[in-house]
């Protein structure tokens, strides 16, 4: 990217990249020399994909103006379905099963996740249940189903193929990281180059205008939640490989982290805006901070508190930035036109079309 092009990027991404550089430098300095080692880079490359996949799955729903509170529950459900299929196909020898069996089981898990996504999407798009409610309900429901199936136990013993997905490498590069790179590239194509992906943004910003613009809003919404669930399934496969087990309530604390990543990455919580570049920077920053603080042997709960402080600081900064820009804009306008320094009221925000769409108005 040329320096010019970099400067033209949204200011949020610019700030994020600078923040990333500063944070990497800071963590490297604090943890000299342990942070800037190949070993540490590789261990980060193993950890990053889980948060990243969950955050991307959260992002697509937020771009369309929704949220997916069921994403962790979907991931655990995927893992559990995959294990059940493995056991059904390979019996007691599940841990010795070949790649073919593992792939079939995983396909089943993925299909289950997509079915969950389609159901939630249907409720949101066709019955017009608010996304926060539909996914909250599915979160509760799936958590229950997961518990009923596993009776609270940890299920373990997976074939090598699955373990390799979580722990294997190609050359020095961990497979989960490769998967993430591929997924980011594909998602980038979807968001910028496909009709559905471009429609995510239009629907998120104004579902009514999108419906009036030859966009099948309902279908787009269903696809959003299916895609989000695919990311949940990917998370599930990596977690299975790394932990060699599934459980009803793994990774529950990541739900808030994934929302945080979206906010940090500049996704508009009301929908319609958010870039993949911002998301990637956000999850990298989160990972660097958490690894760096870990190396310092800091209390993990201190890290959790720090996340909170970071959001609050961001909120304050972005507010201050908005104010500053607004003031500069007004001053510039005055200077340009040589007008008296009369305080004009800030323009009211453009009316956000409400979600109250009459039934026929979303095709």
């Amino acid at each position, binding site marked *: 990217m040329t320096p010019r092009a970099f400067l033209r990027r949204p200011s949020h991404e610019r700030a994020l990249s600078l923040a990333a550089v500063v944070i990497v430098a800071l963590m490297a300095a604090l943890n000299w020399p342990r942070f800037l080692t190949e070993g540490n880079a590789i261990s980060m490359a193993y950890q990053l994909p889980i948060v990243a996949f969950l955050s991307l799955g959260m992002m697509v729903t937020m771009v369309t103006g929704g949220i997916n509170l069921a994403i962790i529950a979907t991931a655990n459900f995927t893992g559990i379905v995959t294990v059940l299929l493995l056991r059904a196909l390979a019996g007691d020898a599940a841990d010795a099963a070949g790649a073919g069996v593992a792939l079939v089981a995983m396909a089943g898990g993925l299909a289950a996740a997509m079915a969950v996504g389609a159901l939630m999407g249907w409720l949101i798009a066709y019955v017009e249940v608010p996304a926060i409610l539909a996914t909250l309900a599915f979160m509760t429901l799936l958590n229950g189903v997961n518990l009923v199936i596993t009776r609270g136990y940890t299920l373990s013993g997976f074939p090598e193929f699955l373990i390799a997905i979580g722990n294997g490498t190609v050359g020095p590069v961990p497979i989960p990281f490769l998967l993430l790179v591929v997924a980011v590239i594909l998602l980038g*194509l979807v968001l*910028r*180059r*496909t*009709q559905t992906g*471009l*429609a995510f*943004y*239009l629907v998120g*910003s*104004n579902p*009514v*205008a*999108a*419906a*009036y*613009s*030859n*966009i*099948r809003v309902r279908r787009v919404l269903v696809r959003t939640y299916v895609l989000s669930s695919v990311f949940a399934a990917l998370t599930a496969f990596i977690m299975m490989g790394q932990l060699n087990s599934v459980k009803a309530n793994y990774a529950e604390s990541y739900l808030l982290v994934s929302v945080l990543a979206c906010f940090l990455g500049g996704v508009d919580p009301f929908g*319609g*805006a958010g870039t993949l570049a911002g998301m990637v920077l956000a999850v990298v920053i989160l990972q660097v901070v958490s690894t760096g603080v870990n190396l310092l042997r800091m209390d993990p709960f201190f890290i959790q508190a720090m996340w909170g402080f970071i959001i609050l600081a961001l909120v304050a900064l972005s507010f201050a930035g908005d104010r500053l820009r607004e003031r500069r804009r*007004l001053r510039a*306008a*005055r200077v*340009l*036109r*040589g*007008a*008296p320094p*009369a305080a*004009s*009221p800030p323009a009211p925000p*453009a*009316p956000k*079309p409400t979600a109250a769409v*009459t039934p*026929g*108005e979303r*095709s």
Partner: protein
Amino acid sequence: MNEFLRLEKIHKSFAGVHALKGVDFDLRQGEVHCLVGENGSGKSTIIKIISGVLQPDTGRILVEGRPVEHLGSAGTMARGIQVIYQDLSLFPNLTVAENIALPEIRERGGRIVDWGRVKTVARAAMERIRVELDLDAEVGELPIGVQQLVAICRALTSDLKLLILDEPTASLNDRDIANLLAVVRDLQAHGIAVLFVSHKLNEVFAVAERITIFRDGEKVATLPPAELDEDRLVSLMTGRTLEKRRFTFADGAARTALEVRGLSLRNSFEDVSFALRAGEIVGLTGLRGSGRTELALALFGIRPAERGEILVDGRPARIRSVQDAVGAGIAYVPENRLVQGLVMKHSVAANATAAILDRLLGPLGLVDPARRAEAAAHWIKTLGVKVSDPAVAVQTLSGGNQQKVVIGKWLATEPRILILDSPTVGVDVGAKSTIHDHVRGLAARGMAVLLITDEVSEAVANANRILIMRAGRIRGELGTAGVEADQVQRLVEARA
């Protein structure tokens, strides 16, 4: 009659734009005074200054003969001045009674809410204008006309001396307008002055004692209606006599592009039949609530019709979705540009190409960014959208340029039938005539155009035929040759 309010030499600028240029204005106690002017003429600024939302840069304000320094919102209410904005500022989740009584309770009621008193206050306000409303109904569930009455009742709970109504009839149907005008006369009988802002000239003539005309930030004149007629008023508003160049359509042999037979949708319209030939511009006019927009929505597949036939180029077309309509070559420029027409926060380019993403595909079925940019640039140029960079958000454009983006978005789908719903609402005079010229140009090249409009004069000047809709049915059809706007207006407002 005594003077209630006087403004002297009011100046007001916004970021260099001189919105009011030394305006003098006076208003008498208990009079109905209408304020007319085009968009951007300064009439809404003057209202904001009277209501205390804005402070003038220079000039004097006198209320009942006494000069006032700063007329903040609270100060105006204390002086008996209330404004009802177009958005009404009601609470949709609260009941009628609470909406009416809340300001009064806040002023005098103490911290505890006495529900008995809420109802008493609300009833008293309703009795003053002799309306009966269900006090327990939730306001959000009520039709807009009733909500308007709730807002008026709310204003009446204070010691009201001047009520300002900002385009109160813009979203009302005929019955509600008649009600409202009756209420306005009633207020006057109680000695309350009403400042009525409207762009519907027939209402202005029906209700005003004096009319003040604004143009380009200046007051042009204040006159009683007896000294004005519609043509004179329009020329005072626009600063020129209305151009009378009419649209004409001669090609009697043109093919029928769209034919509708017995189209019906419950609670929307009934048994609608008409035909539209290629190259024709047919005006569809009627009051709000007459079913004109509902008919358009059915033709465009948003709320499909239940019964009847739609034929495009003589072949039956099944229109159940927007995609069906676009496939059949129908495009629709919707009534509400802000909500239905554009995704305001997104770029001009994204909006201009939103409807044709499926035609901009490159290899692998991916949208080709180069073709997308090209298509956006093409339509920006063709329609003369004034924008420096197609990447800027469409919300930064003026109303006229925004409307051109919407039209461009639809022309990009290469339609053969174009439905325009109130295309020049909120568009300034210059952009208005550009849009009209462009539509005429499209018709000349064989587009069949259905022009839906509130403004009968717009239909008379720009269409060769007019369909008149009333209460869900088409009640009349006439050619525009030799017809004057007021004749059509009478047909529109006629009661069954």
